[in-house]
């Protein structure tokens, strides 16, 4: 019984973790149709922001929840203003540019921070369930991810900014004809997506450590999740994370982590073969 509870908690944590590393990409791709291949490096920057902020005396939670998202959000806005905005509507060019940016950021991080793993200790200790223990921080992470997705949903559904973002996503030319500066919307959206990636990196840093090349480990999973989820940003990310994260974790428990990764990839291939538009292309069509 204890083992079942632990496995369920691990599955929930894995789903939350997958949703967390994917949501920034989902915002940028879902709303702007920009394939950001530097997404993993935004995650990496979030991780380093936490490490250096805590070294400079900032409280760990403040560093994770405020400093890292703000820092990476500003980086995202600078990238959008200097690179991305010249490439809207040119998907291949955008991919090449963000790939180049990804290599640049990895190289710069390696030069500045060195090619070694650094990290911060996970706060909060562990909880005991029967003869098993699990990290309390991982459970808090689940709550934070639920709050982030819920907050994002509330912003998109209930606020004026969310309405503008949804309208611009659907028809930028018409939104402009109603007085909306689509340039500003794109800039803010890219910055928000980058900030969410930074938040992901910050929250993952205590669990996985931070390395200049760490983004590579997350970018593929994030892309698979976003594409499998379909056009709806939140419902798509959540549904794909639930499916792929659960299968990954269960296969890892039954066999090995490598089998878990293979199961995730295989499930995504089968899913996209059956539902080429992703989960929300068939289900939850009006969901956000």
């Amino acid at each position, binding site marked *: 019984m204890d083992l079942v509870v632990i496995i369920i908690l691990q599955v929930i944590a894995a789903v939350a973790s997958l949703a967390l590393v994917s949501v920034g990409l989902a915002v940028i791709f879902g709303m702007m149709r920009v394939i950001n291949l530097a997404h993993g490096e935004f995650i990496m920057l979030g991780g380093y922001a936490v490490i250096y902020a805590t070294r400079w005396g900032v409280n760990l939670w403040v560093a994770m929840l405020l400093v890292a998202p703000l820092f990476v959000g500003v980086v995202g806005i600078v990238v959008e203003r200097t690179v991305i905005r010249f490439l809207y509507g040119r998907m291949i060019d955008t991919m090449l540019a963000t790939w180049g940016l990804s290599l640049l950021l990895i190289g710069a991080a390696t030069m500045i921070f060195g090619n070694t793993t650094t990290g911060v200790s996970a706060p909060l200790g562990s909880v005991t369930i029967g003869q098993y223990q699990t990290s309390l921080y991982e459970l808090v992470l689940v709550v934070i991810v639920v709050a982030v997705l819920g907050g994002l949903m509330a912003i998109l559904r209930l606020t*004026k900014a969310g*309405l*503008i973002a*949804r*309208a611009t996503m*659907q*028809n930028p*030319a*018409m*939104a*402009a*004809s*109603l*007085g*909306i*500066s*689509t340039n500003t919307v794109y800039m803010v959206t890219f910055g928000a997506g980058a900030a969410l990636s930074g938040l992901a990196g910050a929250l993952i840093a205590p669990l996985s450590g931070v390395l200049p090349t760490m983004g590579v480990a997350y970018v593929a999973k994030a892309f698979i999740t976003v594409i499998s989820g379909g056009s709806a940003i939140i419902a798509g990310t959540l549904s794909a994370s639930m499916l792929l994260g659960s299968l990954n974790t269960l296969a890892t428990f039954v066999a090995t982590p490598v089998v878990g990764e293979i199961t995730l990839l295989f499930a995504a291939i089968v899913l996209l073969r059956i539902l080429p538009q992703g989960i929300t292309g068939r289900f939850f069509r*009006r969901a956000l």
Partner: protein
Amino acid sequence: MLEVTGLKSGYGRIPILMGIGLSVKPGEFVGVFGHNGMGKTTLMRTLAGHIKSTAGKVTLAGQDVSLAAPHQRARLGLGLVPQGREIFGGLSVLENLRMGAIRSTQPATIIAAVLEDFPRLKPILERAGGVLSGGEQQLLALARCLCGEPKIVLLDEPTEGIQPSIVDEIGDTLLRLRQSRGLTVVLVEQSIEFIGRLSDRVLVIQKGAFIREVAHQGIAALADEFVGMEA
């Protein structure tokens, strides 16, 4: 209200508008009539700022907007009801109207006032824009535009693909709005009957230039000349 001189534009290297001149007074309803491919929609898209002009000048309420972006023109009072309606299909009817009133400090008041002129939209406020009929979408596109309280409305082929009973309703609504709000409109149309019912004068466009101006009384005679052209 709107002054256009020597306006030229096109798509890439293909010129479409060959030097358009147009003057619209406040409260005036000006029709633009022509065959397919003569530059009617290009004119509207250029006036709205979606196609960059290559020459000429556009003045809106005394301000030169020749180089202004679409959102800047909208903020100066240029309203657009585009061809194909361009409803935000994933947003509800009410959200579409809220988008129209997005720059207003009193959006609820404005939307309530606009809905009085569009009673057909009242029972379907929560329905998604994308599932409405063509006629309902056209009424919504017009209502959304009016929520922005424009000084002038560019109305691009509002009868295209709409069933006749709704075309009549759109015509009635526009006439009523003209009287109640003093609406200033540039209307592009292929239906002589519709354009004749509404317009003070009609400009005939051919190969990207106005070749003739016809006063309201002479519009009916255009029907004989352009027989078989009605959409």
